[in-house]
């Protein structure tokens, strides 16, 4: 890893999608792309586990994260939000609904935070500076 990549790790609660994450998340993100076709969305919804087993080369851990709709876990395993959006679009969820699940806040509380001006930067800039 280069210093360029390492510096981002100081930002709390954030994973930037580096080339090495792109490599480890490749099968997961390609699965997401497959959901851009209506026929595939139908097949996935009919039997999620079978679709993942039969059409993807994802790890068991990645498959479980998809089945659990654990977006933080999917990102840890190399997923990127614009790819993962195809999963929550298939579920009929908006970005706001899906994104809120990563914050540990109920969606109503998250939306209220946004209406009140969003998450304040204070305390969310740097782990090492505690700022």
């Amino acid at each position, binding site marked *: 890893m280069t210093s360029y990549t390492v510096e981002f790790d100081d930002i709390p609660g*954030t994973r930037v999608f580096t080339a090495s994450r792109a490599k480890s998340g490749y099968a997961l993100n*390609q699965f997401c792309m497959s959901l*851009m076709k209506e026929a595939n969305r139908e097949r996935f919804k009919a039997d999620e586990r079978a679709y993942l087993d039969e059409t993807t080369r994802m790890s068991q851990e990645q498959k479980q994260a998809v089945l659990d709709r654990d977006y933080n876990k999917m990102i840890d395993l190399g997923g990127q939000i614009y790819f993962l959006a195809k999963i929550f679009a298939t579920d009929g969820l908006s970005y706001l609904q899906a*994104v809120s699940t990563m914050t540990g806040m109920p969606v109503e509380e998250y939306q209220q935070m946004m209406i009140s*001006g969003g998450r304040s930067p204070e305390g969310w800039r740097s782990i090492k500076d505690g700022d």
Partner: protein
Amino acid sequence: MARITHGLTTSHIPAVGATIDQGRTQEPYWKPLFDGYEWTKAWARENVPDVVILVYNDHASAFTPALVPTFALGCADEFPPADEGYGPRPVPVVPGRPDLAAHLAEGLILDEFDLTLMYDMPVDHGLTVPLSLIYGQPQAWPTTVIPLAVNVVQYPPPTGHRCFMLGQAIRRSVERFDENLNVHIWGTGGMSHQLQGPRAGFINQPWDHAFMDRLLKDPAELARMKHLEYVREAGAEGIELVMWLIMRGALGPEAEELHRFYHVPGSNTAVGHMVLRSAETPA
């Protein structure tokens, strides 16, 4: 000759597109956001360009994980709206401008910007939401469009400085095109927002305002900002703002601000919108 006369920036939030498509723009949550575009819609009706060079990023629609071009120029006759998982947006197909696109491809590559050239490309909310915000819901878009897709998904994206230089090169190349064309350039995405992880919902209003001020007055210095600062101060997806520097570079050294609007929230995002005129444009 062809000339870039005006530039525009706007966020390109997907929920804004869905709200327009579903006729819900007058709902209390959304009305203040759409009101901020009324000035521009009226201005745009009176100032229809021949071509818009539309700088945006693809959100995993045209580009799968198999292909990550840093800069991709749309050279096709037309660009269909992408199916992003909800079905394609019910908006007109986007007409291209292949003669100017071919000219730009040649000019920019010889100017040492090694672009990827796209001859078959669906366009997602990054491109179609700005068109809807500015032109509403017409049967056909009133202008041709040259899409310029920038990678801001996989790191590293291009630096702000590289984006600014690309904008300057676009201006030079457009001015070498023989036909008299009025060209606008749009920089889209931003402003502060983060769509992932426990820090999602991040918004930094003072930083956003300073970014707009600096984009207008001191873009060359702003272009030196590191990616780390974008992510730290504007959220993970705030990195999209490097695309605004392409627009600004293409307006020449001095620009005048005709309109500015800022609003929180549009879904998860701070909405920023500016309309600029190049100082070299006759008033």
